[in-house]
């Protein structure tokens, strides 16, 4: 047995320095681990992250305008939009040529719709103009200023050209401004008229109601989780099934069931009326408003609160409570000073889970929320599926995503994400 001297490195069996060979072994292990999860990583990246990024990019993309109307955009550069005067013939001629090409390629309605988000009426202005412009000869039929104004009075308005110029760049902040009830005009960003402001209100409502839902889930979930963790096995298992049963039932079924319960001719109101607690003419309104959303969503998200809390509480030895009591603590003190602090990681995990799920919910609010109980996600769904304003939907989605990330980060700073446990 030889003892190595101080300046001589420790050697491994194959003669290379031990440090090196250890590092190599570790590296090999890491590569192997990475290779094992590589299929999943690649899948997540291609099927999840890339589509999200490409969707979010739509919130700033605006190349449809410069791509469809290249000559007009170039010609408008020399026009001063603040003078209040119409652009010159050159701009009109450039537009006539652009719209003719666009009409032939059937892309004129798309750019019309894009600009219609900023100024109502542009969509039909483009459609009508394109129909006429198809028959023009760009070389010989000028001047186009009078011709275009003749087709539609909209070309005689400075506003129309201002809108075109303001929204002629490849990238735009317009959708994000729209998402916070503002709009981009020739004189900078300004608020939408008051009777069109709705989105900020919805963001705030979504946040507040998600907090209320999270809190009521905690309120109802904590005792259940405690029972689950402390009852004898047989009873706890039965209770567990009761918690999980609704979890396995379709979301739509559960939401519709609440409709039956809560509506004015529904079960709860009928019972109250038959007991004489409420008169038949003043039945309670508990659905198609905030109450409906909060009640239904609390019920639906409850398992997401109970399960993480349960798994944390299970690891708290009951002997601690007994020890506290034997040392003279009252029931309340023992619970509050000994048991509760140890269950906090479960509360943290459940709350984050419920809050993040709640903030993006849209099916339940859409069914039981009426007009006062809907969330910002309902607006996103509306713009994706109905109004087809994908840019605005992407901007709203980005804001929501960033808001959740900020909240998560704050939570990490204040509570520490290490204190969140989903189990043992």
């Amino acid at each position, binding site marked *: 047995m030889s003892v190595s001297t101080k300046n001589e490195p420790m050697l491994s069996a194959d003669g290379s320095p031990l440090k090196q060979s250890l590092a190599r072994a570790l590296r090999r292990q890491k590569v192997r681990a990475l290779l094992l999860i590589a299929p999943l990583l690649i899948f997540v990246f291609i099927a999840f992250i890339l589509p999200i990024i490409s969707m979010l990019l739509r919130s700033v993309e605006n190349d449809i305008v410069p791509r469809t109307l290249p000559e007009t955009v170039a010609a408008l550069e020399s026009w001063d939009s603040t003078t209040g005067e119409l652009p010159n013939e050159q701009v009109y001629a450039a537009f006539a040529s652009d719209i003719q090409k666009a009409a032939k390629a059937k892309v*004129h309605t798309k750019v019309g719709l894009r600009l219609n988000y900023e100024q109502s009426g*542009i969509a039909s202005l483009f459609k009508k103009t394109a129909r006429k412009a198809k028959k023009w000869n760009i070389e010989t039929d000028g001047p186009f200023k009078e011709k275009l104004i003749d087709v539609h009075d909209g070309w005689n308005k400075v506003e129309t050209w201002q809108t075109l110029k303001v929204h002629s760049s490849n990238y735009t902040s317009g959708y994000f401004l729209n998402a916070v009830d503002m709009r981009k005009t020739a004189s900078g960003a300004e608020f*939408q008229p008051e*009777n069109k402001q*709705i989105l900020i209100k919805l963001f705030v409502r979504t946040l507040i109601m998600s907090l209320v839902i999270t809190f009521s889930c905690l309120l109802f979930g904590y005792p259940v989780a405690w029972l689950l963790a402390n009852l004898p096995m047989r009873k706890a298992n039965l209770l567990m099934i009761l918690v999980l049963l609704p979890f396995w039932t379709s979301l739509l079924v559960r939401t519709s069931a609440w409709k039956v319960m809560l509506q004015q001719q529904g079960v709860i109101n009928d019972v109250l009326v038959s007991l004489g607690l409420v008169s038949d003419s003043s039945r309670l309104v508990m659905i*198609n408003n905030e109450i409906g959303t909060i009640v239904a969503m609390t019920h639906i998200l409850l398992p997401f609160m109970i399960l993480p809390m349960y798994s944390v509480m299970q690891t708290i030895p009951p002997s601690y409570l007994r020890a506290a009591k034997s040392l003279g603590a009252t029931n309340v003190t023992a619970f509050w000073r000994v048991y509760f602090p140890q269950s906090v990681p479960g509360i943290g995990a459940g709350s984050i889970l419920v809050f993040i799920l709640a903030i993006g919910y849209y099916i339940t609010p859409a069914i039981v929320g009426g007009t006062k109980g809907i969330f910002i996600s309902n607006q996103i769904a509306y713009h994706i*599926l109905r109004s*087809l304003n994908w840019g605005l939907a992407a901007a709203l989605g980005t804001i929501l995503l960033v808001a959740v990330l900020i909240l998560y980060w704050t939570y990490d700073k204040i509570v520490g994400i290490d204190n969140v446990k989903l189990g043992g």
Partner: protein
Amino acid sequence: MKIKLTALAVTTALVAPAAIAEEMTIVSWGGAYSKSQLNAYHIPYSEKTGVTILNDDSSSTAVAKLRAMNEAGNITWDVVDVEAAPAMQLCDEGLAMVIDPDTMLAAAPDGTPASEDFGDMLVSECFIPQIVYSTTFGYRTDLVGDTAPTSVCDVFDTAAYPGKRSLFSVPINTMEWALLCDGVAKADIYDALETAEGQDRALAKLDTIKDDVIWVSSGSDTPQLLADGEVIMGATYNGRLFSLIEEQKQPVAMIWDGQVMDLDGWIIPAGLSPERQARALDYIMFATDTQRLADQAKWISYGPARASSAPLVGKHADLGIDMGPHMPTAPENLSRAFLMNYDFWADYRDDLDAKFQAWLAK
């Protein structure tokens, strides 16, 4: 590998040069409406040709999905049932195939070419009209008191008809009705709605009933609310009300006054492979002929879009009642109809939607 695959593709193409698809996906609205199409079109077509028809109830979001399919370059639908306005939009964007009615659609039995038989219903060059439907009101006969409502404006009269009413939570139709009942002549409504004053006037009129309204989003909501007695009157599609009244025997009657008529029909997505397109056209030729359109009215009370189908409309398949008077196009119903302006809504929808939603949230 690549070469092998190409070779395989080439041989397959050579073996079956004129093959047309044996399976097709047809998109529609679901519910009683899809059932009527199944009975009148799909089953006879499958029997005749052996083609398997897959149903997809995605019509309410068809434009968004067709756009996404187009961007992805993979169109999975063969024939799509949409309303007139979305059909126009799809056509304008090049997402729907242009149809020549006289060569691609069947002529009437007496030889009248399809373009004449459909007439004004051909609102877009991509649109193959199928039915005329309307949005109108139904009321609970047992909950409205002694005098039944007869006018659309009774919806706004909460003194004579106290209780909840349901309306669609969209400005389309709702704002027109508000102006109509605020004394604006039918012909002037869209001029008024173009101005901020007119829009405010409509919303002010709606303010008078706002607390008594349950706002709904789907065509099946109002029938359910009426059946539960949650509302005393409410707006929905006339076919849904027919089913509620005649098939489910609920104590409900209809106010045809102020019904807003709209068209529904087929489009074929642009960019299908030749064999799938051939199959889709073959289906369309079959499903929109005079007899087939008249057959559909045996199962649902929507008016056939062909003039030549109207005389063939008979009795309900199960109930045996005469379907003629239940159509939105029946003379006494038609005289009280209101015609929607598609172009106006194409322009002002986003703007008025924002205003309307902000008003709702107030």
